[in-house]
Every structure is written in C-alpha cells, then in structure tokens.
C-alpha cells in the first residue's frame, strides 16, 4: 500500500516539473496555434544565462534566478514581434521551420559557449532539505516545484478567465482576424502572450536544472513531454495541462518501478491512449 502511495506521490511531484514546461507551451499553442519547436531549448537557454550570471559561483543566487526569469519577458516580447509574428499565417509549416532552425542554432550556441559537459544549478540548502509526510519523506525541491506548478496553472487560469488581459488573449485564440476590427493589435497581443510564456519557460528551465543535470541537447526531450501533456490535457485549459503532466509523471514512475528502462515509455503510452480514445484531450476549453 505504501509503495502504491509512494509511486503516486513521486509521480505527482515529477508531473509538477513537467507541468511547468507544458504550461508555457499550452499558452503559446492555445493563443497562437504556434508549435514552438525551440521550447525546450529556450528552457535550457534560461539555465545557461543563469549560469553565466552566476560568474563561477558554486551556488546559484535565488535573486539571480528570479531576475533571469523576469528578463525572459521582454526577450519573449521582442522575439515574437521581430521573428515569430512574421511567420504566423495560414501556412503552419513556416513557424515549424523557423522554430526548428532556432532550436538548432541555440543547441550549437550552447555547445560552442558552454561545451558539451553536463551542468546544473545548485542551491544546496534546497536540494538537501526534506519534507516529511507521515511515514514518507519528499525532497523540498520537488515539493517547491509542485507548488510552483500549481501556482502557475491557477494563476494563468485566473488571468485567462478573470481579467481584461485574459479576455484579449481568449479573443485572439478565437479569431485573430476579428481582433483588429475591434481596435486591438493582434501582433501586440501575441507578443504579450509570448512574454508570459517565456517567463514560464525560464522558470521551467531553472527548476529543471536545480533538480537534474542538463547539457546543450536536453531541450528536445523536454519539448516532447511538454507537448504530450498539452495534448492529454486538451487545448485552452491550464488545469488540463497540469492533469496531463501529472498523468505522464505517474505513468513514468509506475513504469520505472516495474523496470527502470520503461520509465519514458510509460508516459508515451498514456499519451497514445488519450490520442486514440479522446483526441480532444481530457479537459479541452478550445474546440478546434
């Protein structure tokens, strides 16, 4: 019984990590129908920027990490206005090609500047702390990551469905062509969505590197899991994305308990089952 509970809780906590990266993807995909193939690489970019601004210190400063995440907002806004808005049209191939190219450029840039060595961000007090829950105990970092995931999903759900900005983002998601007819600039709205998504992406990357080692080529595997979580959850619902990520996390831990080699496959099987039997996702808010 304890093993089952342990699997569920460990899977849930792992799902929290996946949820943060998936929420950024869900936002961009939901509002702009943009599949950003550089999503995972942008997560890793935030890690390398944090490492660079740690100036060789053995431990990362939380203030530096927060500033890096905040700095990704203007980065996202500018990236959308300068690059991504130019390729968003009726042809879905163009943004795929551009973001794939961006992914390749970023990976090679990381390799050139930071080498192929694995690296991570360290905050020892956080990594070593433990949260006891009854007879079980969990790493404080995992609990923090899960809390951040819940906070982001809840916060963005509130912004989307309870604020002026959310109304504009949902309207952009519904019909971008009509947005201009009521006086809103779709390019600006998209850029704001990107700015928010990039902050979430940076948070996801930083939390990932506090927990695991990363290297220049870690990004694409993160993109795959994030994309699966968005599809499982259904478009337009951050709680749905969260649920998708948790299911992947639980499936991975369950499969990994049976055989460590099956861990990744466990998540993919859940994804394929949802795609086969409920292709619209478990909690869709957008019908197309």
């Amino acid at each position, binding site marked *: 019984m304890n093993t089952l509970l342990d699997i569920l809780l460990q899977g849930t906590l792992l799902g929290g990590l996946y949820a943060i990266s998936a929420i950024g993807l869900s936002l961009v995909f939901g509002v702009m129908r943009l599949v950003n193939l550089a999503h995972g690489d942008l997560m890793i970019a935030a890690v390398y920027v944090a490492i660079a601004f740690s100036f060789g210190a053995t431990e990362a400063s939380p203030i530096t990490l927060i500033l890096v995440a905040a700095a990704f907002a203007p980065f996202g806004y500018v990236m959308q206005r300068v690059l991504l808005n130019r390729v968003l049209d009726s042809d879905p191939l163009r943004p795929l090609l551009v973001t794939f190219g961006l992914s390749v450029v970023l990976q090679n840039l990381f390799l050139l500047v930071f080498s192929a060595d694995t690296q991570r961000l360290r905050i020892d007090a956080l990594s070593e702390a433990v949260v006891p829950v009854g007879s079980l105990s969990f790493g404080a970092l995992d609990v923090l990551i899960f809390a951040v995931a819940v906070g982001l999903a809840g916060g963005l759900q509130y912004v989307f469905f309870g604020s*002026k900005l959310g*109304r*504009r983002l*949902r*309207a952009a*998601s*519904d*019909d971008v*062509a*009509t*947005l*201009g*007819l*009521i*006086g*809103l*600039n*779709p390019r600006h709205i998209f850029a704001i969505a990107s700015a928010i998504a990039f902050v979430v992406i940076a948070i996801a990357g930083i939390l990932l590197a506090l927990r695991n080692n990363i290297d220049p080529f870690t990004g694409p595997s993160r993109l795959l899991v994030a994309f699966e979580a968005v599809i499982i959850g259904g478009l*337009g619902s951050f709680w749905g994305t969260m649920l998708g990520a948790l299911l992947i996390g639980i499936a991975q831990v369950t499969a990994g308990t049976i055989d460590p080699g099956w861990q990744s496959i466990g998540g993919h099987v859940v994804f394929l089952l949802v795609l086969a039997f409920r292709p619209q996702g478990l909690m869709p*808010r*957008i019908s197309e």
Partner: protein
Amino acid sequence: MSLLEVSNIEAFYGDFKALYGVDLSLEQGECLGLVGSNGAGKSTLMRVIAGAHEGRVAGTVAFDGAPLPQGQPHLVVSRGVVLIPEGRKLFRSLSVQENLQLAAEVGRKGHWTLERVYDLFPILRDFADRPSTALSGGQQQMVAIGRGLLSNPSLLLCDELSLGLAPIIIKDIYESLKEVARQGTSLLVVEQDVEAAKRVSDHLVCMRSGRVVLTGTPDSLSPKDITAAYFGMETT
C-alpha cells in the same frame, strides 16, 4: 470635404482582381446603402475601407481628410471607422458581456456605453452571461452591432446585417440603426436586400462585378433602374 472619400480603389485576391477603380464618398451624418448581388465586391470594399483586406490594394481611402492605413485595422478603428463584419464574427469563447466589454475597453470613449447598448437591445441584458454562440442569429447580430457601437465610431460599416435572419428580426435591426444614425454616427450599409437598404439610406450605390454601376437617392432610383444595375441586364 466629405467624411469618407474612396478614390480609384482596386483590390486583389492573389491574381484575381475584385475591385476596378471604385470611387465613393459619404458625408458627415449620412447613411449610404451599398447594394449588389453576390460577388459584386461590396464586402471587399468594406474590408478595404476598414483596412482589413489581406490582398493587394491600390488607390486611396481618406477619412476626415487623412488617408486610412491598409493592413492595420486596429489603427482604422482608432480613427473612428468600425466594421461589423459579415457573419457577425463574435468571439465564441467569450460571453455576450465579455464580447461587449472587450470593445468598450479598447474603443474610443463617447456616447455609447455598455448600459446604452443594453438599452438599445434590452434582450442582451438578460443573456449577458451566456456564451455568445448560444444566442439566436438575430441576437448574435445585436451583439455584433453593440460591439461595433462600443468603439464609438464616427462611421459604422455594416456588412450584410440581414444575412440569415428572419424578416421581423431584420426590421428590428434596421430600426436600431436609425437610432444609431440619430446619435450622429454615419453609416455605410451593405445589403443584398434592396428594400431594406432603401428604407435606411440617404443615398444608394449599386455595385456589379467590382464596379460602381449606379448611384442616386432611394427616391430618384426606379425599381427598373436598380434591377437593371443589380443584374446587369436591360429591362422592358
């Protein structure tokens, strides 16, 4: 100086030419009816005026003495020219009130407020929290008109308001437009229903195959003239 001056407009969809040197003018406070059959170029002209045509455009559209930009409809709205598009185009994930609020937050300030739109269309007040797609076609058209009014336009472009609506609803919709005109808003109304257009218009323009083929006041144009211009054939 006219409020709206459309000069020698040509518009394209790829290589297909939809408008051939269209000229049009509209005075302050006037209601101009634009009639013509399917494919005459009425909606294309409306989208050109609203800056929302996605193909190539030649010629100029001047409003209040200054040219309107092409390809940036949000800037056209900020100048006071608002299009109610064909097919309503409501935001389907937003409630009725949210559709209206969105326009009110973004648009210019003026006579039209959320309360005044609800006074014009009282039934919308009862359905404020419903999804916009849960309404009937006529009620959706009211939301679309209300959304347009909340931008407080100087010129309201109405594209086929009667499309798919019952005659009794069309009558109500056009009655509400008269109230809009009384508040000083100029109107450019596209219609396939000539009688509906005549009832509300000070001037009538008939288009066929991307060209203006007939202009005049509703009283000065005989049904025979309009039929001939509309269908492009001689009448006996």
